[in-house]
């Protein structure tokens, strides 16, 4: 496997003005306009304040939340519009869902090393589930503009896959699976992956989602002799390599920092057992 994660653009700290923030199936879609951002690599992330910054600072919740850049486009004038797709899973994301235009959210980014595009002649096999789907759209969009891409998305039920419509609008093959059968194949996304791996074409698997799903995808890709990249979601305090809080254990020994060395890693390097 030769793909090397893309280099990161230098991060800055700035404010994102909430343009839109609304529920979409089981996700929320937050659109921020950020005056001084320019470019992101697919799979890069930002650290967002846990909720809008109102008329006075609060210290609870304290830490910023890592969120993938779902989609970014140059805004009219300068800067860009950044879309974040998130699930409300705790206090920080719940407070984020209370943010309304034109409140401001503190943003640090772009951070981390994102996904490299598939090398020429290699098919990209993008496998997503849960909040992991948010890390994959920009990759799917850019890769499908250049070459052959298939996207496999899995979820509990149809409500979790309303978001698939964005992927459906791209020039790629999209396959869905839900556990309750309410949309696409009944079952796990890894069952779709098994079918896609039954080929001798060169593939590069990109997986992002719940740890068991990524781990299984990694094992299947390895068994099929195909490359696999995963994007890890570890708790983070800083997002830029100074707190050492996000360390992921490596099979070669020692740790990598998910925020600085990742979040994208070659799956074969990850020591899944102790990932937390």
């Amino acid at each position: 496997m030769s793909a090397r994660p893309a280099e990161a653009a230098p991060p800055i700290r700035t404010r994102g003005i909430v343009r839109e923030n609304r529920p979409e199936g089981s996700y929320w879609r937050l659109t921020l306009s950020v005056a001084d951002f320019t470019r992101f690599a697919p799979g890069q992330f930002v650290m967002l304040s846990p909720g809008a910054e109102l008329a006075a600072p609060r210290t609870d919740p304290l830490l910023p939340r890592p969120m993938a850049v779902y989609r970014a486009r140059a805004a009219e004038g300068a800067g860009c519009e950044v879309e974040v797709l998130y699930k409300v899973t705790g206090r920080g994301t719940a407070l984020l869902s209370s943010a309304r235009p034109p409140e401001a959210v503190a943003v640090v980014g772009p951070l981390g090393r994102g996904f490299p595009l598939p090398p020429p002649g290699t098919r990209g096999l993008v496998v997503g589930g849960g909040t992991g789907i948010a890390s994959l759209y920009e990759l799917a969009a850019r890769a499908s503009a250049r070459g052959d891409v298939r996207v496999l998305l899995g979820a509990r039920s149809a409500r979790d896959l309303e978001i698939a419509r964005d992927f459906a609008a791209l020039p790629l093959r999209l396959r869905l699976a839900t556990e309750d059968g309410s949309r696409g194949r009944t079952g796990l996304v890894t069952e779709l992956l098994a079918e896609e791996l039954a080929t001798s074409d060169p593939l590069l698997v990109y997986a992002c989602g719940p740890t068991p799903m990524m781990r299984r995808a990694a094992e299947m890709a390895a068994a099929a002799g195909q490359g696999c990249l995963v994007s890890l979601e570890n708790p983070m305090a800083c997002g830029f390599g100074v707190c050492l809080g996000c360390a992921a254990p490596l099979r070669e020994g020692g740790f990598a920092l998910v925020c600085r060395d990742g979040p994208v890693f070659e799956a074969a390097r990850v020591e899944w057992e102790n990932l937390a």
Partner: protein
Amino acid sequence: MSARAPLAPDRVDARVNLGGIALRNPVLTASGTFGYGTEFAPFLDLRRLGGIVSKSLTVAPRTGNLPARIAETASGMLNAIGLENVGVEAFVREKLPALHPDVVVVASVFGTEMEHYAQVCARLEGEPRVAGFEINASCPHVKSGGIEFGQRADVLAELVRTVRRAARKPLLVKLSPNVTSIAEMARVCEGEGADGLSLVNTLQALDVDVETRRPLLRNVLGGLSGPAIRPVALRMVFQASHAVKIPICGIGGIETAEDAIKFLLCGATAVQVGTANYRNPAVAGEIADGIRAHAARHGFARVADLVGALEVPGV
């Protein structure tokens, strides 16, 4: 409160001297929260700071604890990183040269045995880029087979004595807050020749996931930092500054210039910014500017005149 006439901020002398370490302003960044400094280059010109304190360094590189290493608490966070660091050699060869020569660097030093502390200091003695040492005597989360160095007066005394022999550069001792009497620990360090004190390190703490019924940290216990601990840290700085004559560097939950000034008023000569760097990587610079502005507004021509200027009411 004696009223003074406001000054222009550029007329304020922000310099302080921390036990022999000359600082252009009283704001340093705290060990373990600022990496080796270079990581902040995109956000902040480090020359705006009084200085930086390195991640605690050991003789050999150390890998840290298994995850989860961090967790969020009310206005605070827990960490049990496990003192992961590149080791003193890599620090000298890779990290120090990457910093602008005008950045004041204090090396934080740690070891599982007293001699190791001394070895790290000895290795750094000849390094002109190292302005001084900060002895990390308090690490509640490393299983060193017992209690912290900084929790027993006799152990702490021996540690400072051992390190003092190896260290000619200015020597700060960073105290653990997990003690009955911070004043006693401060006096012990002063007695053994420390040039200054840094306080506080993290408060030993624990948090739990009620769904899984497991501790949030793999290490079970961790260190609490952030705004939550600020009032405890202020109290300890106040008590320590009344117990000793050597200067104190105040640490604990500093997020704003106001917070930093509270520490100065309680007797700290300088301060360190820790957890706040995660929320806002430019914050230490903003605090340095804010202290100058505050001093000017209150008519203090020297920031050093704010040190210990708390007015305690008669009862």
